[in-house]
């Protein structure tokens, strides 16, 4: 196990070296980082084979916090779920590290960038390897920190710095839920170790109900919902998704690694990890599913009309995360994780490819200023296309398998299943549409490039394109490990089965006929989306404008992202909070509290001033006062005795 403790530690060591010695290492810092991550990758592969051999590793290193009955260790565990995540994280991270060598070339913060990336990898690995909630929370917050650092990497850009803060603070709202959930878990189970907590679940201690907001709510539901609040923050679900599009202010490799492939899926991972808790509460499961489904559609609608290449992908990410939660919510945990994995590859690919585009265009991100790039950057086009196909769910690309499994599970779910399935199909249509809209606007049609930019357009260096190609390869092939229908074809679900024993796979039961029908339907829907995009955008037609004109209201609403950002800005950035704080400060602290204090002082000072007037300097007045004292004392005495 100690060896595997190196999995997170290697990147951490790399971080320290690159961070502290960055000044001297300069561009060499990248190699340190890459070495760390690749080392972690190698170890992860070893771990994978160990797990495959049936090893289950769980070890505490030292007692971290021990207060009274509360005791938490620093410890890691490696099981099937962990190892999947380890592979996803280390693979993506390695590739993106390598890609960044080219992408970040010449940036003055070069060593800093790599040290942050390594740090991120470290925290991400801690997150997935944790064997208890609190260590997980370390990773959980740590990746948030790195996200903050990397979004704001170009901190001289105000928008970047703002986006970093926004990401962190919104995540904190989620953490609020997470922390309370953890506290409640401890209160209920008396421990935070995953294994012990999950073992306790379903026993009598978890039968407690709380009276909250006028209704009774079982403790399991409460815990699940609180944890899910944390997940919505980290994984950018409604209503806490607002930070993710802004996070695109960071360098593109960051968007690929953190805001597409790994960190944002932490919420999904966490819910999957807590499957033993969630699956005990129907309310919680439904909530997860509904939030996921709604997010999937909601974000997709926004993605339809965005013009910034990275933003489209960002909204797509939110939408895809919604799919994952949709899967988790209906109990298809392995399907969710499967989609997590495939998504990591093709979304990483899409981001990196878009980075390549941006790199080629010297930083241009607006699709309206692109077009006809296909001949100029062929490799990028190719991998981009593969990514779009995978995202749209066109067989046999990776996205097809995972998305299909989700939809099939949703369809089979009880209760709200059908409604959610409908949402999923709707989302699939839109996904295909915006993916290909992106392709066509960027690579086809007429060139709208800035002439100055135009003749600089060039394919990215090998160090960038090779990782792209590797990812493209995965985007094509990775789906096959989760082959549906075919008996024994879903290796992935089988591999994960020990983790989710509570859940019977719906795919296993029942006949395959409806599944095939649904599969065909979803492929058709995706194809329809592709076809529509093809018709509208391949050779710039007037359709999109006409359509936009006709549904001006809706179009603008979508274009403006439902005005959520505006509301957010109004409240948090432009100062409702700050203004209110200022008002409260002047009224509360300055006027009332300090006012009272100063008021007393003034009162005493005033008494002093009027006392000064009484001290008039006339000796007879003094004598009179003495006499008055005498008279009053005698008078008081007289009153006293009567």
């Amino acid at each position, binding site marked *: 196990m100690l060896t595997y403790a190196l999995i997170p530690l290697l990147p951490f060591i790399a971080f320290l070296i690159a961070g502290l010695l960055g000044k001297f290492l300069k561009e060499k810092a990248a190699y340190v980082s890459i070495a760390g991550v690749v080392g972690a990758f190698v170890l992860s592969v070893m771990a994978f084979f160990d797990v495959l051999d049936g090893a289950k590793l769980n070890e505490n290193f030292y007692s971290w916090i021990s207060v009274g009955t509360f005791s938490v260790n620093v410890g890691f565990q490696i099981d099937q779920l962990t190892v999947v995540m380890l592979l996803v994280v280390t693979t993506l991270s390695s590739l993106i590290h390598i890609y960044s060598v080219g992408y970040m070339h010449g940036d003055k913060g070069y060593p800093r960038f790599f040290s942050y990336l390594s740090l991120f990898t470290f925290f991400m690995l801690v997150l997935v390897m944790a064997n208890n909630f609190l260590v997980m929370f370390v990773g959980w917050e740590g990746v948030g920190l790195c996200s903050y650092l990397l979004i704001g990497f170009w901190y001289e850009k105000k928008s970047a710095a703002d986006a970093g803060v926004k990401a962190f603070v919104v995540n904190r709202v989620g953490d609020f839920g997470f922390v309370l959930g953890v506290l409640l878990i401890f209160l209920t189970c008396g421990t935070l170790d995953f294994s012990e907590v999950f073992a306790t679940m379903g026993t009598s201690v978890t039968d407690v109900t709380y009276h909250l907001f006028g209704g009774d709510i079982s403790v399991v539901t409460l815990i699940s919902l609180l944890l899910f609040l944390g997940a919505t923050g980290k994984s950018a679900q409604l209503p806490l998704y607002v930070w993710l599009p802004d996070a695109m202010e960071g360098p593109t490799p960051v968007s690929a690694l953190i805001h597409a492939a790994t960190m944002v899926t932490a919420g999904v991972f966490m819910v999957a990890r807590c499957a033993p808790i969630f699956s005990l509460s129907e309310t919680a499961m439904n909530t997860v599913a509904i939030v996921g489904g709604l997010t999937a559609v909601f974000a997709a609608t926004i993605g339809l009309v965005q013009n910034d290449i990275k933003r489209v992908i960002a909204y797509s990410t939110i939408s895809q995360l919604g799919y994952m939660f949709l899967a988790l919510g209906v109990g298809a945990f392995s399907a969710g994780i499967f989609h997590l994995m495939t998504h990591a590859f093709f979304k990483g690919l899409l981001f990196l490819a878009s980075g390549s585009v941006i790199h080629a265009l010297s930083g241009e991100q607006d699709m309206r200023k692109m077009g006809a790039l296909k001949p100029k950057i062929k490799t990028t086009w190719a991998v981009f296309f593969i990514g779009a196909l995978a995202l749209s769910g066109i067989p046999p690309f990776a996205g097809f398998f995972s998305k299909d499994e989700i939809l099939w599970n949703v369809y089979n779910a009880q209760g709200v299943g059908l409604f959610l399935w409908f949402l999923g199909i709707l989302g699939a249509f839109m996904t295909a549409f915006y993916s290909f809209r992106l392709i066509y606007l960027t690579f086809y049609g007429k060139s709208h490039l800035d002439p100055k930019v135009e003749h600089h357009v060039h394919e990215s260096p090998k160090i960038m394109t090779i990782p792209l190609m590797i990812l493209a390869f995965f985007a094509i092939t990775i789906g096959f490990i989760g082959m549906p229908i075919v008996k024994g074809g879903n290796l992935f679900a089988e591999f994960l089965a020990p983790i989710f024993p509570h859940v019977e796979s719906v795919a296993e039961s029942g006949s395959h006929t409806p599944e095939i029908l649904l599969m065909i339907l979803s492929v058709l829907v995706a194809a329809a989306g592709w076809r529509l995009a093809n018709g509208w955008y391949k050779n710039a037609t007037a359709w999109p404008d006409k359509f936009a004109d006709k549904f001006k209201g809706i179009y603008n609403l979508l274009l403006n992202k439902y005005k959520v950002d505006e509301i957010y800005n109004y409240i948090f950035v432009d100062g409702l909070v700050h203004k209110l704080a200022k008002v409260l400060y002047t009224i509360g602290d300055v006027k009332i509290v300090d006012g009272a204090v100063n008021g007393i002082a003034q009162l005493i000072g005033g008494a002093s001033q009027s006392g000064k007037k009484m001290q*008039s*300097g006339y000796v*007879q007045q003094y004598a009179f006062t003495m006499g008055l004292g005498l008279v009053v004392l005698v008078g008081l005495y007289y009153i006293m005795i009567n």
Partner: protein
Amino acid sequence: MIPLSWYIILSAALFTIGIVGVLSRRNIFIILMSMELMLNAANINLVAFSHYSQTLTGQIFVMFVITVAAAEAAVALAIIILLSRNRGSIYVDEFNIMKG
């Protein structure tokens, strides 16, 4: 026989007149004289009590009071001379440089 209370009432009245004099007159001389009235009121008391309690202490006390009054008058008058020399006034309400 004269009741003791007569003396006491006389002295109380005299005492009060003294106080009123101190409090209301402007001329320092008169104020000082008013104080002598107060002292004399006390003296009447002392002698009367001395008489009625058949102890001589009261009379001794009166002698001392008179002595002190003499010394005090001397000092007071010296100060009045100073004041009148320096300030040209013997009106007590004109001495209020110091106040507040």
